[in-house]
Each structure stands twice: as C-alpha cells, then as structure tokens.
C-alpha cells in the first residue's frame, strides 16, 4: 500500500506538470460553467423534486464532465501513450506488482476528480450563489469517489481494447461527447426528449449525472440506485481490464 501511495505521488506530479491535461481536465468544466451560465442563465430547470436555477444545475452537471475527463479520458490517453512509449513495459521489468501500478494510477484519478469538482463547486458557490448544504458534502465526496473509481476502471478497459495512442483521443471523444449531450451534462435533462434519455440510461454517464444533480436539488440526497449502476459499470470495466489489459504495445 505504501508502494501504491509512492506511485500515486509520481502520477499526480506528472499530471500536474502536463499543462494540456491540467487545462482539459480542471479548467474545461469551469469554462463551460461560465459560458452556460451566461447563455442559459435565466429561467429554471426541472429536476426530480422541484425546480432549480440553471447554475445550480450546471455545477453538478459539469462536475460529471470533470469526473469523466479526470478518470476516463485523461487516463486512456496517458496509459496508451505510456504503453506505446514502452514506459509500462519498463515498469513491468521492475519488481513492482501490477496491481500497485493500477491502484496508484486509479487513486490519482480519484484525487484529480475530487479536486476538479471541488474547484467547480467553490466557484459555483462564490460566483453564482449556488447552494450546497454542508451536510451534503460527505455525500458529494462519496459520489465523486465512486464515480471516478468506476470511470477509471472503464478507462483501463478502453485502454485495453484501443490499439495505439493515436486512436485513443478520437475513440474516447467519439464515445463521451454524444453521451455528454444526451445525459444532461451540457443540455439540461428536462429539455431532452424522453426516448433520448432512455438511450442515455443505457450508459453510465447519465446515471452519474443524476446522482450528482440530486445532491444539488431541493429535496435531494444520495441516489443509491444511480450510484449502484455506475459502480456496476465500473465492475464490468474492471473485469475487462483484468482480462484484456496489455503492458506492451500491439506488435
């Protein structure tokens, strides 16, 4: 476990020194919050249990984007790049067990996701008067942790089936971009046709978004059902990752 923390330190250091990763993961949700707040800032949005201000909706909605970027998009890109460069192969040539490398990297996903959502929430509260009762903070930490861990597993599964780093970005974006739109991340769920939400329900991003939004709605709390679906997806990802993950690039 000490070794996993050792690995976590360096994974975080590498993330922190990569301006591209920092920008796309941490800053993007904030930029979207400013834009969406300006464009769609008036009126109210219908959520289970009442109506809320758009900013109150976009903070958890874009928080979902932050979690998926930190845990899955960023992970798939770095892992496939490191695999192509031989970094993973080189690490396998040391005595360090595989699970330590995976655990260290997964923990870094959780830490980065928590930081991203934390910044988003603080900006939301300070700049837009978003309301998050202090009593819901532990629930938020739980949802972000479970969500990022699950998407991290899905990231390893994707990295296992993607052949090279060159195809990592287009493949991942092709998967997540449409899902962001139909899952209530960019467009509030009350404006999405029911059948499209039905499609989104078949994928994990919608369930994570629902669990996030529920924490910011008037009568909300932890949506165990949605969180469970996210965790289940994570478990499936883990099984695929364990069976298919390669340390050496495809010949």
């Amino acid at each position, binding site marked *: 476990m000490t*070794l996993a923390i*050792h*690995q976590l330190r*360096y994974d975080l*250091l*590498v993330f922190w*020194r*990569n301006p591209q990763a920092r920008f796309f993961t941490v800053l993007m949700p904030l930029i979207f919050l400013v834009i969406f707040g300006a464009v769609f800032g008036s009126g109210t949005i219908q959520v289970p249990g009442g109506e809320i201000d758009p900013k109150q909706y976009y903070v958890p909605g874009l928080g979902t984007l932050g979690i998926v970027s930190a845990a899955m998009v960023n992970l798939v890109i770095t892992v496939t790049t490191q695999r192509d*460069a*031989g*970094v993973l*192969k*080189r*690490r*396998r*040539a*040391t*005595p*360090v067990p595989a699970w330590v490398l995976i655990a260290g990297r997964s923990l870094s996903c959780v830490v980065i996701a928590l930081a991203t959502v934390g910044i988003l929430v603080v900006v939301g509260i300070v700049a837009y008067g978003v309301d998050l009762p202090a009593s819901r903070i532990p629930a938020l930490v739980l949802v972000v942790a479970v969500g990022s861990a699950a998407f991290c597993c899905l990231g390893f599964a994707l990295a296992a089936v993607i052949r090279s780093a060159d195809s990592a970005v287009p493949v991942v974006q092709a998967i997540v971009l449409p899902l962001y739109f139909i899952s209530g991340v960019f467009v509030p769920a009350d404006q999405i046709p029911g059948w499209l939400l039905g499609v989104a329900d078949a994928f994990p991003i919608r369930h994570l978004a629902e669990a996030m939004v529920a924490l910011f709605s008037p009568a909300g709390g932890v949506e165990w059902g949605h969180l469970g679906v996210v965790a289940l997806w994570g478990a499936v990802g883990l099984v695929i990752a364990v069976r298919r993950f390669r340390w*050496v690039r495809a010949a």
Partner: protein
Amino acid sequence: MIDVSGLRMTYGEVEAVRGVDLRVQAGEVVALLGPNGAGKTTTVEILEGFRMRSGGEASVLGADPGDPPKGWRERVGIVLQESVVEPLLTVRECLTQYAGYYAKPRSVEDVMELVGLSDLADRRCGQLSGGQQRRIDVGLALVGDPELIFLDEPTTGFDPSARRAAWQMIAGLRELGTTIILTTHYMDEAEHLADRIVVLARGEIVAEGTPGSLGGRDREAAVIAFSAPPGLPARFGAVEDGRALIRAENPLPVLRELAEWADQAGVQLLDLEVRRPTLEDVYLQLVA
C-alpha cells in the same frame, strides 16, 4: 548466471531463434552481435521474461525467466531498446520513483554519479539529449542494484562522441562486478566492451569467442599486399588487379626475401601493407 540450451522462438511461420545455446558466468560481459533480424532482441527478451519461448531450456539466475519467482526481478536490471523516461519528471525524480520499486535500492546520488548525470539532477528528462536519456535508462536499470544487466543496443543512433561516452560508462559497470549481456550490431562496440562475443545470424549462433580470437582470427594467415611491380617472380604469389596478395602464416621471412628481390631488381614496393583479418572481416564473413 545464465544457462540456455536449444532455445527456440517461432512467430507463426518465422523461426526467429533456432536453437541457441549460451552460458554466461558471473562477472562476464557478453555481447550478442549480429545484423538486424538475427534474433538478438528476441533472445534477450526471452531471458528478461518478456516473451515465452517456443522451445528449449532457459535458466537465468537459477530460475525459469518465463515464470520468474518472487524476488527475481530485484536482481535483474534491464535497458530496453527504446528510451522510456518520463519527460515531465526530473532526473532525480525519475530515479527516485524507480528506486521506490525495489526492496534494497542503490542510493539515487550514487546512481547519478555512476551514469554521469549528477550535474543534471534537476533537469526534466524531456530536456535531455538522446545520449543523456540513454544514461537515465541505464541509471534506472542500476538503481535496484542488480546482479545481472541486459543492455539492448545501448548506442544505436548515437554520434561517435556520445558512443565513446556511453562505452566509458558501460566499462565502468564492469568495475562494479555486474554481469552484463549486451546486444549490438556494431563490431567495434562488441570488441571494445565484451569479454566474449557471440555472433548471431538468422537465429543461430555462428561463432563465439574473445574479441581477439573470434572466428579463428588469431590463427589465420596474415596478408602481405602491395602494388605489383613489373617482373615480380611468380613464386611470390598471385596478382589481382595489379595488386600482389601474399598469404603467409609467418610473414617475416617472406618480407625479408621480398625486400632482397626488390633491392636487386631496383624496384619499389608501393602501398605495402601487412595485416591480419580485422574483426570486421571475420564478422562480415560469418553473417554473410
């Protein structure tokens, strides 16, 4: 240290390694020399535990590299063909990260000293030259204090001065008493660094020996060559394209006789040279 017999590796129809036998003693520096595609890297990757062999027996540090026991990787250092440093970490951070993977690592300061990177300790790896990145790779292999090191083409793509510097560093590892297996397709590199050279071609060992004796080089006849003057007696040997080539087990008496004849005939022996086959001659013959 290493005991390999009848090692085979096939990829589909292709036989990359066809029955290699190799024994390496502790403290030896052995070079696997051969052209691209000779099976060097495949052989080394099997011994490193990265590939499963198709046939034959292999033992490295007393264990099967295809199924290494716990603790085996603590004792083996590996330098892969391509450089693998994390560009965003500094030299010291990179080495400290890898040191953390080992139970009894060498001190990071010592390793930087050994590979000559002490002055660049706080430089990001991405800002190092190709030769310096290679030094880090060697440093990563040394940081676990291994008994055995594999160096896969350590100087491919280097300019001559970077190669010299790398040789000096590798020669320094010998002083530590580490056993080294080196692959290369440069003859001068093998000659310079290795106690013993194993020449591979088409997946087989075609010759083996010390740099001085490889391919019977030490026992081969010397060649006396010069521009043949007119009237050179036939007893001295053949003339090819106006150049006399005389093979002699013992060249000195032949040279004396030749000099006497030239004096009497009043001719000069232009471009006179006496040489034994170079390692390059032997090598090119072996892998042809």
